[in-house]
């Protein structure tokens, strides 16, 4: 699903953040990239989203490649991929329903079938009772669930999450992790960046630690 082949990347001239990094995420896997602040987790996710391009090497995600990505392909890529962020990125003046429906409306062929898909995803995630609320009326955990619903409503092949539990309390964070686990069991590949690896104790998660521009798989006892 994701392949980073001999990636070299630096923000400025000098020591590169990644120096010939190679990394792969197979289809259906739930991969956690953990590491301290400023270790390069978000940069790695940005490379996987083609927000930034590598100085050298190739990033391939869901059939798209950094070699030949262009505006049109990027739009198509974004429609096949879901993104979740620490700060939720919900639109304050829209209801929960409209925030989720926006992901389909921007595809310019929003119809009653898609409206049903919005109801379904809200019900699946268990926040259909909030559909008429606006983000200001929700807790952090609820906001993140709305963001997850918005990322899922387009049935993405891949879900990328940048610190999705970063601004939540422990209980809400656990709920979000459980929800993501359920989504992964449903078949969606997930790549998640988090500084808090403790939340992902389950053996289902493949954890990589990022430091000094390299990724090292964390091997747990009994696994």
């Amino acid at each position, binding site marked *: 699903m994701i392949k980073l082949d001999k990636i070299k990347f630096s923000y400025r001239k000098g020591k590169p953040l990644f120096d010939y990094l190679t990394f792969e995420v197979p289809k259906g896997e739930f991969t956690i990239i953990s590491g301290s*602040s*400023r*270790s*390069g*987790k*978000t*940069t790695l*996710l*940005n490379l996987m989203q083609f*927000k930034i391009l590598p100085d050298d090497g190739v990033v391939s995600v869901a059939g798209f490649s950094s070699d030949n990505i262009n*505006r049109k392909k990027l*739009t*198509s890529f*974004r*429609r096949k991929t879901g*993104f979740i*962020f*620490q*700060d939720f*990125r919900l*639109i304050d003046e829209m209801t929960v329903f409209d925030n989720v429906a*926006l*992901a389909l409306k*921007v*595809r*310019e062929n929003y119809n009653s079938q898609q409206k049903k898909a919005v109801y379904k995803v809200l019900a699946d995630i268990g926040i259909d009772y909030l559909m008429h609320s606006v983000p200001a009326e929700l807790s952090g955990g609820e906001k993140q669930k709305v963001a997850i619903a*918005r990322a899922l409503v*387009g049935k993405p092949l891949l879900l990328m999450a*940048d*610190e999705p539990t*970063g601004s939540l309390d422990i209980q809400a964070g656990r709920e979000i992790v459980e929800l993501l686990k359920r989504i992964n069991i449903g078949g969606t590949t997930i790549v998640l960046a988090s500084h808090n690896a403790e939340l992902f104790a389950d053996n289902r998660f493949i954890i990589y630690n990022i430091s000094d521009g390299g990724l090292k798989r964390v091997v747990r006892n009994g696994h």
Partner: protein
Amino acid sequence: MGIERKTSGLIFRAVLGCSLIYFLLIVFALVYYNLHLISDDLRHSITIQAYLEKSVQNADVQKIESEMWRIPGVSEVRFINKEEALSVLKEAFGEKVFEGLKSNPLPASFEIKLDRNHLGWENIHRAAEYIKRISGVKEVDYGGDLLKKIDKIVRVGTLVGVVLLALISLAVVAVVINASQLLYYKDSFKLGIMEMLGATDFYLSGPLIIKGALIGGVSSIIAIILSIGSFMGLGKSISDVEFLPPQILILLVVWGVIWGAFGGYSGFRSGKRSGFHIESKHD
């Protein structure tokens, strides 16, 4: 509520700015249009008078006339014999003035008119020069200097008009781009989310293009209403001045809409270039 008020204030200021710019354009167009009407009137009244030698016989008159018809753009050639010329003068100045005359001193002449497409100074001058060279023609008169001056004024006016139109279009685009950029920055968070969700540039720029087109269109309509009001208000003092025809006013609105839409799109592009992305700050 606060943001909405800021947005409407922004659009209001853009519309006001563009309206004033368009008003100036209409004032100039009005001056230019009337100058054109006057010059057209003058050109239509201009005829070439070709006075013949006294020695010219009736048979030669036919030859001269057929020679004149060979000139490009000639639409009318009328022979005025000596008697007709005198009677025209008598009609103009009265019989008494000519009582002492023993013989008719006036020469026979031709009155030549050119068609609409050949009424410029150069064509008339060229025709007059050709006529001068026809055997039997003694003198040619066509008010050449006046025509030359009119043509020059109209040419300068056209040039000034084209430059002014270009500058005004640029000014309108600049105002709309500025407004669109500000509208864009205001919505940048929302636009960034939409882009992340897979919205195309066409989808994202649509509202700004529409707002730009509306700013351009509404501004031109306001400027037209303002100029019609001023024109009617001035009333009798400018009773000889004609207002711009509806076709030009419609063209102005279309012009406003097109440049406004272009400004809206340019505002979107430059806003996007300067970056609306909602980059994650954590790492």
